[in-house]
């Protein structure tokens, strides 16, 4: 890449629509698995809170999955989901999301003060009803923190999917590397970071809307 400047602005100017499409594709590949992961992790977490013995084995399974290198999992999945399909990338990312969100769900439910649990029981909530109507809503701030971690790591992991043909912005890294042309690489890094930042901000905003009662800055609202 000798003599090649880090950024050639004309290339970016020429490829705006292309970059936008890659970014959107990246967002879908990275974030839909987080949503699906949430839909799996919450019922699973509630079940673990109801039957605590399930939690150890389940979290062990998801931790092992989380420890697998993403590229290896993508490659293993190709025979089943096909090369360059979204599913090849999204299935592992969903597993990673569950691996992050299951412990946060369970921790969040456990963090609900014992007094709240007891008051709910004493007022006539059954165990499931109490979990869904009291403990789950009370642990929304935890869930959102979990979602922030899961979403940002999913956005970064999704780029690896480019190696099996479907990686959204990750494609820019391969392209730039193969052509010894750094501009797409820089553009990719900036866009991945921007995507992560925007997602994170949206989640913080969502937390304010969903759990206004959890905004307890020191000295606020008395």
């Amino acid at each position, binding site marked *: 890449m000798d003599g090649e400047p880090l950024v050639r602005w004309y290339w970016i100017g020429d490829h705006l629509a292309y970059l936008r499409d890659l970014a959107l594709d990246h967002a879908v590949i990275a974030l839909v698995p987080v949503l699906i992961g949430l839909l799996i992790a919450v019922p699973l977490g509630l079940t673990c809170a109801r039957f605590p013995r399930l939690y150890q084995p389940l979290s062990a399974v998801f931790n092992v999955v989380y420890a697998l290198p993403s590229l290896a999992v993508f490659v293993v999945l190709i025979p089943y989901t096909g090369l360059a399909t979204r599913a090849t990338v999204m299935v592992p990312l969903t597993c990673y999301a569950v691996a992050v969100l299951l412990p946060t769900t369970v921790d969040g439910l456990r963090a609900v003060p014992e*007094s*709240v649990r007891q*008051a*709910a029981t*004493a*007022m*006539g909530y059954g165990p499931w009803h109490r979990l869904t109507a009291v403990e789950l*809503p009370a642990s929304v701030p935890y869930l959102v923190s979990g979602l922030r971690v899961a979403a940002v790591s999913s956005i970064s992991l999704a780029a690896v999917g480019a190696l099996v043909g479907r990686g959204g912005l990750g494609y820019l890294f391969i392209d730039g590397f193969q052509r010894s042309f750094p501009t797409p690489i820089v553009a990719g890094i900036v866009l991945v970071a921007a995507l992560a930042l925007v997602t994170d901000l949206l989640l913080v905003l969502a937390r304010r809307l969903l759990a*206004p*009662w959890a905004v307890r800055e020191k000295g606020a609202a008395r």
Partner: protein
Amino acid sequence: MIRFDGAAKRHPDGTVAVAGLDLEVPAGRITVLVGPSGCGKTTILRMVNRMVEPTSGRVLLDDTDVTRLPAAKLRRGIGYVIQQAGLFPHRRVIDNIATVPYLLGWERKKARARAAELLELVGLAPETAKRYPFQLSGGQQQRVGVARALAADPPVLLMDEPFSAVDPVVRAGLQEELLRLQGELNKTVLFVTHDIEEAVRLGDQVVVLREHGLIAQLADPHTLLTAPADESVAAFLGRDRGLRGLGLRSAAGVAVRPLTDTSQYGSWDLTREAEGRPANWLAPDGSTHPAPAFHPGTDTLRTALDAAVLSVAGLAVAVGPDGRAVGTADRAAVLAALADDRDRPVSTHGR
């Protein structure tokens, strides 16, 4: 009425929480369970709403064995207040209070109207309704906890050290409020505390417990303070119990001399404000001193004695319901009332 009929709780590991309790909790009255930590008082309380199931014996609520009722249904008919309030952090005050009505399937509008009523009943401002629990002080949270327990108008109220986590001034206010509420509502209240002062202040009957939920003494507060069953109860009651017992007796028996009778003033003179409230004692040298006062109709002998002791003139000022000074009583007059009144305990609960 709640009746414990040999109710016992043994844990699976063999330890005994409650060895076997026979106790009647009369309807419409406040019964206080008091004892050191680990004496099983909370376990006893929780047997009533089946948060603890007795391993032998029975707990009867209006002659029905509580274990025959579905737990959720039973609990929706029993108010429960705990130390940390246990308010739902994600619900506004109004919806916290309306919890049981919602569970009972009331319409949202009706439930909230009832909750607003209760908010007022426990002395909270209407604008509190829209707040979240974290925006309230400890005392306010506890009031909301009481309102929530009363929302569906249950005949029975279980209170587990509800005022222990707030500071003494707030606690005194909450205790007074509970007595005022009880005067209006006449619930069957079972109240657990480790604070003997609180027990004596609130209870119509006080049950002093020792370990394993054994009853050391069951008595009305006055009897408890004047005639503890044994050394251990006396020790638990602590020092000054005779003096504290005066706090349960009315000051109505104190002979008050009218203001016009200045013979007992000596060289002192009482100055009054424009509305007739006592202001100061004026000494011969022109210096002024506070004039402690008591209200014979509503205050206790303890307050009257305190006023007489504190007054440098040796005279407690008696005031009428409007706060106007009506007369004075010297220390001898207060002491005479003590002797005179010994066998006539007077509840200060206004009931």
